């Protein structure tokens, strides 16, 4: 069935203060001076796949449309190539704003379920906390198991290539002072009063 949705945003959709809050985060201050020129959307290699273009995300964030940006696919499609940040005439650190929005989406639990990118971020951070290092193949396998086990089957050819070229190692990489990472990260939490 065709789903009809209005395409404009009302004042009632705003979560007042959201834009201010984001712009007070270190690195995100410059968003205030966005001129909506669209350079970011033009240089972004992923904008053609996004539900909102980077320019729109800038406008929506500044305009307090919290739910729209935190639920968007855009923030997860950002591959952190920093093309927008370098080209922005107003020196807005767009990539860092995307990171800030990703963090807020994870904290608010607003990301699309089973969408592989936030799952990757979570699995990655858990592996780092536990072992201090990433074992890439284990991470990839966990990701596929938790999001799309069938897609993993589709990559059998790559698995064979990796095995043949001696790159498929599954031995867990870890640091010697294995308690260090957890102690540091806990100390970071304690400081933030989280």
């Amino acid at each position: 069935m065709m789903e009809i949705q209005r395409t404009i945003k009302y004042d009632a959709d705003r979560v007042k203060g959201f834009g201010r809050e984001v712009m007070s985060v270190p690195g995100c201050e410059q968003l205030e001076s966005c001129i909506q020129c669209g350079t970011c959307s033009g240089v972004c290699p992923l904008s053609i796949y996004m539900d909102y273009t980077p320019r729109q995300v800038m406008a929506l964030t500044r305009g307090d449309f919290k739910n729209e940006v935190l639920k968007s696919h855009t923030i997860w499609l950002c591959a952190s190539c920093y093309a927008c940040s370098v080209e922005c005439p107003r020196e807005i650190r767009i990539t860092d704003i995307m990171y800030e929005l990703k963090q807020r989406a994870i904290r608010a639990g607003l990301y699309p379920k089973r969408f592989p990118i936030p799952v990757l971020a979570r699995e990655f951070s858990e592996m780092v906390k536990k072992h201090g290092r990433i074992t890439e193949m284990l991470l990839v396998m966990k990701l596929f198991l938790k999001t799309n086990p069938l897609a993993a089957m589709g990559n059998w050819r790559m698995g064979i290539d990796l095995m043949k070229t001696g790159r498929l190692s599954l031995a867990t990489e870890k640091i010697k002072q294995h308690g260090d990472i957890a102690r540091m990260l806990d100390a970071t939490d304690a400081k933030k009063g989280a």
Partner: protein
Amino acid sequence: MKYSYFPGCSLKGLGRAYEESLLPVMKHLGVELQELEDWNCCGATAYMAVDEAKACVLAARNLALAEKSGNQQLLAPCAACYLVLNKTKHYFEDYPAMKATADRALNAIGLRYSGNTPVRHPLDVLLNDVGLEAIKQKVAQPLQGLKVAPYYGCQLVRPYSTFDDQYNPTTMDRLLETLGATVVRYPLKTKCCGGSLTGTVPEAGIRLVYILLHEAKKRGADCLATVCPLCQFNLDAYHSQVTAQYGPVLLPTVYFTQLLGLAFGLPDKELGLNRAAIPFKWRPAAAAAPRPAAAVA
């Protein structure tokens, strides 16, 4: 010349050919590398999406370990590690509160960081510390006739242009020319390879890989040279997915360090050249004669 060497997770995993070629090449040039004792994951792009402060804390442990080791300079060959370590240094300079947070976290494990560890990329060290003249003297088998598309990817020059131009970097171009190779004009040299999107959102990631390979091939390149393990992995390991969607574009992607090794006359086996899904074979003997077109594929 002595540096602390920060391999990062990739150079011990999928990108091990990078380490396998970097170490003998640096040794050949008289550059001493000492692996950073008990280094940890830099945090990469994934951790920045979870928690910025923690991402900086992770990077800070490595910067502190480098300081403690006495070899102040930290060599980070992976573009993602290189960016995260540099970004953390910038954050500490710009936001004292962030540095204070990291200091407290480091204190919890008995480390301290004064803020003075320079983070260097091998390209930077090769051009600015070793020098092209010294490199030229070591070239035993010039890469004459080899056409290379220099691919820098994104995070080496963006957002910080530490040692090269962020719009049109040329350090690798100059290095490859010193080795006798022909550098093809490659306007996509800093275009994104898709990062982890090749695995997470293949419909978007695979297309970016295809564009990079296709353009290099169109411009007559025999191979792409890269400075980053993720770029190499994306451009090499996803060839069957690229072929399935767009047709075959079988162009080998090698680490610039592998080309250095070949030019120095180091044996293939020591350079990790057996690690690629799309194999790269360079026969200097064939270069003397005009190259047959078939050799490109």
